[in-house]
């Protein structure tokens, strides 16, 4: 077990630059997810660490050792493929034993280790079956057992849960987490599924166009996204984009294409500069504005936005309101408390939020 470090890694396929000076450190014994849309370079990163591709520039270290020039079969990695790539002509037991045989272990030792790992993934009774005779979830566990049994320095998982249906996937996420915690192995997990990355990882690395946009704990990248790509990739978000006309202690007056609004924010930008602020739909407080309501005037003077409800999407625990604020569409999510519906389509509402919820985005160049 060891930490993995990637330094200035660049990979080109023809004219296409897939990885652009990538830097990454995977701490010892943690599970790190590479998250990004397809084509962002996450799978290429994994394949470079495994050794299936050669980098154009940069270095890869496992522990202290630079592994760029070491062939795949000497790298001591474990990999679970998207298709599982179980050997169809071998039994489950033979599949798992394969890696140990390559390491020239004695028969008794191989038997002991294979039995132990099959027990860990709860497949002790399936050793004599062929992969085809197993369900998707079971095949997945065989693939995991096969990769883990050799005690690799790093475990690489390539979108390995995406072939399962949703219910099974969630079960496997929990199981995977449990198994990996027991083995304490450094793991790199490639996925495009943000929910999966959130549930499984110690660290999330959000990638875009061959670069790392942000690396952090799951709550960090969700609650404090660095820029609008990260904010938009993980979960839903409302963006306010425009020129700052006035900046106060915790408020900015933002001139947007649909009009000027005063927002309370976590961090002000200088007046005269362009800025992007983002706020998550669940951080918005929605209050109905009654025409004759006495509080209406008071609310109008409070900070926030006023708009008209256009759609309401009810999804059991949540209601999502699509609100038109002077031409700007804003999403707001409200927990349903079991009370009858108060707000209806066409109602005027007031939106407010804590200043910490409205996050300034680093500008993207």
């Amino acid at each position: 077990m060891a930490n993995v470090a990637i330094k200035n890694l660049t990979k080109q396929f023809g004219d296409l630059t897939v990885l652009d000076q990538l830097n990454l450190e995977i701490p010892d014994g943690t599970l790190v997810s590479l998250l990004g849309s397809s084509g962002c370079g996450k799978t290429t990163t994994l394949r470079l660490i495994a050794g299936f591709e050669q980098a154009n520039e940069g270095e890869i270290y496992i522990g202290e050792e630079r592994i760029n020039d070491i062939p795949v079969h000497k790298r001591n990695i474990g990999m679970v493929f998207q298709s599982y790539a179980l050997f169809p002509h071998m039994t489950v037991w033979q599949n798992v034993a394969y890696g140990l045989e390559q390491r020239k272990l004695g028969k008794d030792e191989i038997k002991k280790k294979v039995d132990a790992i099959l027990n860990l993934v709860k497949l002790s009774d399936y050793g004599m079956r062929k992969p085809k005779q197993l369900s998707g979830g079971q095949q997945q566990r065989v693939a995991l057992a096969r990769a883990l049994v050799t005690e690799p320095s790093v475990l690489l998982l390539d979108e390995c849960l995406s072939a399962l249906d949703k219910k099974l996937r969630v079960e496997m996420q929990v199981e995977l987490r449990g198994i990996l915690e027991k083995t304490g192995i450094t793991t790199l997990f490639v996925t495009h599924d943000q929910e999966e990355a959130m549930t499984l990882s110690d660290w999330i690395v959000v990638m875009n166009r061959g670069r790392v946009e942000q690396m952090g704990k799951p709550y960090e990248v969700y609650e404090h996204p660095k820029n609008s790509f990260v904010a938009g990739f993980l979960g839903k978000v409302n963006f306010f984009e425009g020129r700052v006309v006035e900046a106060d202690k915790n408020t900015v007056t933002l001139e947007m294409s649909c009009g000027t609004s005063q927002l309370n924010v976590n961090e002000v930008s200088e007046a005269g500069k362009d800025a992007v602020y983002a706020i998550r739909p669940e951080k918005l407080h929605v209050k109905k504005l009654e025409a004759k309501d006495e509080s209406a005037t008071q609310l109008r003077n409070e900070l926030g936005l006023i708009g008209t409800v256009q759609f309401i999407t009810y999804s059991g625990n949540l209601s999502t309101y699509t609100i038109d604020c002077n031409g700007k569409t804003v999403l707001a999510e409200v927990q349903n408390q079991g009370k009858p519906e108060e707000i209806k389509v066409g109602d005027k509402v007031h939106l407010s939020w804590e200043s910490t919820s409205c996050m300034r985005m680093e500008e993207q160049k």
Partner: protein
Amino acid sequence: MKNGALSKLYILGILLFLYTPIFVLMLMSFNESRYNTLPFVFSLKWYEALKDNTTLMTAMNNSLYIAFVTGICCVILGTLFVLGSQVISGKWKGLFSSMMVMPLSIPWLIMGLSLLLMIRAFQMDKNMFFVFAGHIIISLPYSVLVLQARIQALDSALDEASASLGANALTTFRRITLPMLAPAMVAGGFLSFMMSFDNFVISYFLIPAGITTLPIEIQSSIKFGFTPEINAVSTLIIGISLVCLAVVGAIMGSSLKSIFNGGKA
């Protein structure tokens, strides 16, 4: 209901069309009459006569020998080709593959003729080497087609998985690639064997004087007086082929089935 009966009748019609001639031949090999005429009287005398017909037996042995060598060569060459073509990229791969199976579309008559012309042009004598060469040329595409279908259906991640588990290229080939290809090698070899075994045209052009193969012998015996011994030898060949198929099928089990079902592993 009515539709079901109709389509069954239709299928029966096609099957009759395909198998009636062969059935008649097999039947006549057990008929006593010398002139393939009815009434049918069961007899094994033509099989007994076959035993003593050394010309026919030698011809059959020659055909089996040629077909066996051809089959083995086709499997080896075909396997090397499909493995090699995995490494080639892009347009070259397509070009090579098309050129490999091209002999399928060239009439055997022309193929045989061109080989004969070549031998003459270089002032060489007909010999067994050219017989093998000719048979391999026309049989190889069948092996290649079967092997190609198989290798394309294989998950390329299998090799990578093997490497990631610590196996070097040679071990990966021996323990993963070869076993995965084996059913296709057997099936492809069998096809090439059959193509060579019943080939008349190529052998006719290239066979050295004094040597004969079964198809040539059958052809000439039709010219000089047909005996039901030919029926008997044909029936034996069909029988042996079916037994071969059954054995291969039993050994390879589902893997072979998957080849005939479109190569899905």
